[in-house]
């Protein structure tokens, strides 16, 4: 339904749209009246919103949580969000925006009549407050860094925000899809350091989303109730419940039991549930590129021939076919969206002879290599076992170590690794990868744990960031993509598919939270088919 109506909209000529808009404005009061008479369908939807890699169970501070937006967006709102297909950014609390010719001024026009859950109006002061809060060092928000280029925030009136930028900043709109709006009137008196882990987030947070906070039972669930004053109209459902399952298998049993209406499924679980007619399955791209990254501080990996030998030695297509059952897409570089990937790149198709020749040429010393990963699931273990075998066929001795994320962070940060197998920053905007590839000399905020310093990559990311047209951006990132593909500081592997299972007859969709879930979910339209 959703898709069909959107598709037909695209084909409608503009003047018809305008005519419809005018008509709509005339009949709007009548329409609201009729809608008020149609009682919402009601009911309680219970789901495991924070299950799987897109979730962040019991994370309540949206400025520091790296994922979990699927849930945050039920009670908070952002200025803008991706559409469900992640093809573009659409208005939310900002009704429209324009960028000045030189790209240095961004004007946001806020939606009128939006109320916080406590009845206060949402204004430009809240936007200014939120950006400044995220940017405050004590708020410890990774999102703040995305707004570093903003030099001034002006609020000429309640519904207008004018941002002045140091340089054109194309990823700024992607940054806004990370930033939930928070109320100045409720938070201004709390010091950012106290707010970082403050109880406000988990006792009575105030947002502008379709649902309002109702209660939190630690270790069990959070309950939200419908926001009667939601600007898109009251949601159909009365309540939303987010249940926590420390053990993934228990969530699947609760799904099959009918206790919850949806959860995330691993590829194995999705396969196993394939013949269960009561479970509808959804699949979507994870938007997480998996890769092998070399520690370039080690001399043995500094020769590109050696890195290419590793790429040729691993048969990624067989892994995709056999282990992923075809549900992953191979990558040419770390970008996955086609407009950023130029033609004619080397696919490094499996070729063990070539790998051996390159090892010979690069003077491989035959030393042992440890692959470090934080993936501890069965599929990843199988993948690494296969990789170990492939590399051993080419004459490379490999061991692999799977550890928890904390130890991984610690070792990677200390450069105490040979090669890591991991997934990179998540989402459709190519700039998210700059943090791994850009040199600290150009951008002091990067992680760059491979210690990559490549002038072409630096220039490409800078050009992409400051581009003022889509064409310029595409050209810049295609350039970066070619260098990534040729230099192989990271061997790009694949983007996997995420699965979700929905039980029963409810009318709602769930996508497996690509990009951490920063898209418009239309949860105000979700319904449960009434149990007759």
């Amino acid at each position: 339904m959703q898709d069909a109506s959107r598709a037909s909209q695209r084909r409608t000529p503009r003047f018809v749209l305008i005519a419809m808009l005018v008509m709509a404005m005339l009949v709007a009061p009548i329409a609201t009246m009729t809608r008020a008479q149609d009682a919402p369908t009601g009911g309680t939807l219970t789901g495991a919103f924070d299950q799987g890699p897109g979730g962040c169970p019991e994370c309540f501070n949206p400025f520091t949580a790296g994922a979990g937006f699927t849930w945050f967006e039920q009670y908070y709102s952002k200025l803008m969000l991706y559409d469900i297909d992640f093809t573009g950014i659409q208005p939310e609390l900002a009704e429209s925006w324009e960028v000045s010719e030189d790209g240095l001024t961004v004007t946001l026009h806020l939606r009128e009549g939006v109320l916080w859950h406590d009845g206060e109006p949402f204004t430009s002061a809240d936007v200014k407050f939120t950006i400044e809060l995220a940017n405050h060092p004590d708020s410890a928000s990774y999102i703040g860094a995305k707004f570093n280029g903003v030099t001034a925030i002006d609020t000429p009136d309640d519904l207008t925000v004018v941002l002045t930028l140091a340089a054109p900043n194309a990823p700024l709109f992607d940054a806004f899809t990370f930033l939930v709006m928070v109320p100045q009137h409720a938070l201004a008196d709390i010091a950012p350091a106290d707010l970082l882990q403050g109880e406000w987030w988990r006792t009575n947070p105030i947002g502008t989303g379709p649902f309002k906070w109702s209660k939190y039972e630690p270790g069990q669930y959070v309950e939200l109730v419908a926001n009667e004053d939601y600007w898109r109209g009251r949601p159909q459902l009365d309540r939303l419940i987010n249940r926590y399952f420390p053990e993934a298998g228990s969530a699947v049993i609760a799904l099959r039991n009918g206790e919850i209406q949806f959860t995330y499924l691993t590829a194995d679980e999705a396969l196993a549930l394939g013949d269960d007619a009561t479970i509808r399955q959804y699949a979507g791209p994870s938007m997480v590129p998996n890769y092998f990254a070399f520690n370039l501080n080690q001399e043995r990996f500094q020769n590109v021939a050696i890195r290419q030998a590793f790429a040729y030695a691993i048969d990624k297509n067989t892994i995709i076919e056999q282990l992923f059952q075809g549900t992953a897409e191979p990558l040419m570089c770390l970008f996955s969206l086609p407009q950023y990937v130029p033609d004619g790149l080397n696919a490094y198709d499996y070729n063990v002879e070539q790998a051996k020749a390159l090892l010979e040429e690069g003077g491989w010393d035959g030393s042992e290599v440890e692959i470090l990963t934080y993936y501890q699931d069965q599929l990843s273990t199988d993948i690494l076992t296969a990789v170990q075998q492939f590399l051993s066929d080419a004459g490379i001795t490999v061991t692999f170590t799977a550890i928890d994320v904390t130890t991984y962070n610690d070792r990677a940060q200390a450069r105490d690794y040979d090669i890591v197998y991991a997934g990179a920053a998540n989402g459709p905007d190519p700039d998210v990868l700059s943090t791994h590839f850009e040199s600290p000399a150009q951008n002091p905020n990067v992680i760059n744990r491979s210690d990559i310093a490549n002038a072409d990559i630096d220039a490409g990311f800078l050009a992409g960031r400051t581009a003022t047209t889509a064409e310029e951006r595409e050209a810049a990132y295609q350039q970066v993509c070619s260098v990534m593909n040729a230099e192989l500081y990271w061997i790009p592997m694949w983007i996997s598919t995420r699965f979700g299972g929905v039980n029963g007859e409810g009318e709602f969709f769930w996508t497996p939270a690509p990009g951490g879930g920063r898209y418009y979910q239309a949860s105000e339209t979700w319904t449960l088919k009434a149990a007759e």
Partner: protein
Amino acid sequence: MGRYIQRRLLISIPILFMVTVLIFTLLQLTPGDPLTAFLPPDNPLPQEQQDAMRRQLGLDRSPPVRYFFWLRETVQGNLGYRQRTGEPITEAIGNRIGPTMLLMGTAMTFGILIGVTLGVISAIKQYSFLDNILTVFAFLGVSFPVYLAGLLALYLFSLRFRWFPAGGLSTPGEPFSFTDRLDHLILPAAIISINYVASTMRYTRSAMLEVMTTDYVRTARAKGLRENAVIVGHGLRNALLPVVTIIGAYVPNLLGGAVFIESIFSWPGLGRLYLEGIDGRDYNLIMAMTLILAIVIMIANLLTDLAYGLIDPRIRYE
């Protein structure tokens, strides 16, 4: 007796001190710290901000200084905050202590009652068919991994037969009701109790067998006492001594909880909290829980020793 208790309590202070020093030292040796655990692996925090957080969490100070701060606050009753969520630790523990004690208390009570009863029966009917069956059950019960048992039970009783809900403390969003709580409690408590039934039974059985061959039991029988009176009054009473020892050893589990079962059954208890603390390198939480566990173990040991005196009049504490 009073002086004995006093002495024991005094000795426990340096022991507790050593336990906390040991745990604190081990934590410093564990890779990662609360900040690295807090950072999403792919979303960077500028170095400047990381440094600010380190300062805020007190991680920029040397370990001895941090230990001293921790000790000073703890002695004053301030256990600090959970580093990930900012929840006060007393509140976090307070929230989860009830569910854990309910789960473990139920499991232990039934486990011990059933275990002692079956142990006595299998001792009296030694080498009978029933005894053999119970022995096999005991070995299975002790050795079967509880993790697997939990998943299997969920699959069978929750999914296949639909007798019980798939975990949780209560039905979300519903007001508290006794039957609802019971419904959620039975399955995990039953799984945990299997272990207690099995081990209590084995201890009771061997203690009973030993006691039933002693002279005073023969004397009791010779007096013409009924067999039941002999078994309960003379046999069981004396056999309970070793059983009380192991029951005393169970008590700390009342708080330690069953980490795996709590996870599988989404039970919001202390075992799960401890696991979250370790995952998040939440030093405050781990220190607080270890301290509390150590105190409970010491009190349990003391109570066990005192219980000996009640059961066995030969034991006196000066």
